[in-house]
């Protein structure tokens, strides 16, 4: 078990280190989410109210995550790293978990900027929204990294990821928006946790079939 965890940690550290040195993904995500929020200001005519803004915040989060996820395995593909990782004597699900942790870190960093920016531009963000964002991030990264690994094995490559991901993201949007806009967010947060648990389990159990022949 400790071997497994150190594999996961090594893989996550590799991605974070690569990002620290290359700065490929995170600046793009930050710029994207900031531009999206500015676009939303012009997309919301006056009088549409706070709730519409909160709904759009979730659109921004999902698309920003997609932007980062579509880059998740590009370095591996270009350098042929994935074959090496598959041949390495460790559990294949460690590849998924390490990458998901790295993706979560990028997304969380993007949101550390995006949420205050949203509060500045639109309306204040309450604790339930933050809790919803954290729970949704887990689901987004678990499923998104899994599907990103699937999509790089296809001819369509990155193009396929949004098509595969968005139908699966609908329940996350429901849970997140519900947690942000309703009076009692508890059930929505519970729903997000249920989603995370179910999909993380199925991703963890079946990742081997995605990377191995």
């Amino acid at each position, binding site marked *: 078990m400790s071997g497994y965890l150190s594999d996961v940690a090594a893989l996550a550290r590799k991605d974070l280190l690569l990002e620290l040195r290359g700065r490929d993904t995170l600046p793009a995500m930050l710029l994207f989410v900031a531009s999206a929020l500015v676009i939303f200001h012009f997309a919301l005519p006056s009088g549409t109210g706070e709730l519409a803004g909160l709904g759009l915040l979730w659109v921004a989060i999902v698309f920003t995550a997609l932007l980062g996820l579509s880059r998740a395995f590009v370095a591996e593909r270009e350098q042929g790293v994935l074959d090496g990782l598959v041949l390495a004597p460790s559990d294949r699900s460690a590849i998924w978990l390490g990458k998901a942790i790295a993706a979560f870190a990028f997304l969380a960093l993007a949101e550390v900027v995006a949420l205050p920016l949203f509060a500045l531009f639109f309306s204040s963000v309450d604790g339930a929204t933050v809790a919803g964002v954290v729970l949704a991030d887990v689901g987004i990264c678990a499923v998104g990294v899994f599907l990103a690994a*699937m999509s790089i094995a296809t*001819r*369509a490559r990155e193009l396929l990821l949004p*098509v595969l991901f968005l*139908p699966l993201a609908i329940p996350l949007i429901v849970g997140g928006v519900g947690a942000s806009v309703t009076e009692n967010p508890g059930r929505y947060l519970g729903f997000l946790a249920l989603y995370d648990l179910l999909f993380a389990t199925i991703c963890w159990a079946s990742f081997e*079939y995605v990377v*191995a022949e």
Partner: protein
Amino acid sequence: MWLRNNALAASAALAAVLLASAIALIAFYVPVDADQGLSQKIFYFHVPIALTAYACFGWGAWKALRHLWKRQEGADLESYVAIHLGVIFGAMTLLTGSIWARASWGVWWAWSSKQLVLFLVLFLFYCAYFMLRFSVEPGPRRANLSAVYALFGVVLIPISFLAIRLAEDFIHPTVFTSNGPQMSGSMFFTFCVSWAAMLATFGALYRLELAGKRIDARMRELRELLA
């Protein structure tokens, strides 16, 4: 013995008989709904088709599991054929639901119908399944990716159902419900016959598709041997 050799013909005949009797029952036997009138009769098509679509997706996921778990020969093709038919039945659910919504509420699309919204989500999901499947070269890789995605589908069905129920609280409250008063005995009987007919149709089409696909694969093999 005859039955085993002619399973396709037998299941097609069964489906034809059941379909004909279901249509006859719907047209002549079952009483007209007091509340909704004649248009309610589409219920006997809409709901059985929807339930059959779930059965297709479930069967496809079961075969996908067999492929991943037991490495069962041919399970990938069976899973694909079941999901393919599920998408066709799902499209028919959307179509009949849309007609029903038009007849009873005067609109072609109603977000308040949970069943329809769920089928829209599932339809999008399984269309993505096709995109995935046809952008990978045929082989073990494609079989694995398709099987894994098909398994995601059966997890997504209850999760989406729950999500759509939860979303009603803040999207808008339910105005119309599709489950009206309790079904009477004759209505329930007609419903069951219609459902059996749809399932039999699925069974027959499933066998037909599989037979066609298998012959296709054999032909390709033989052609490669000759070339």
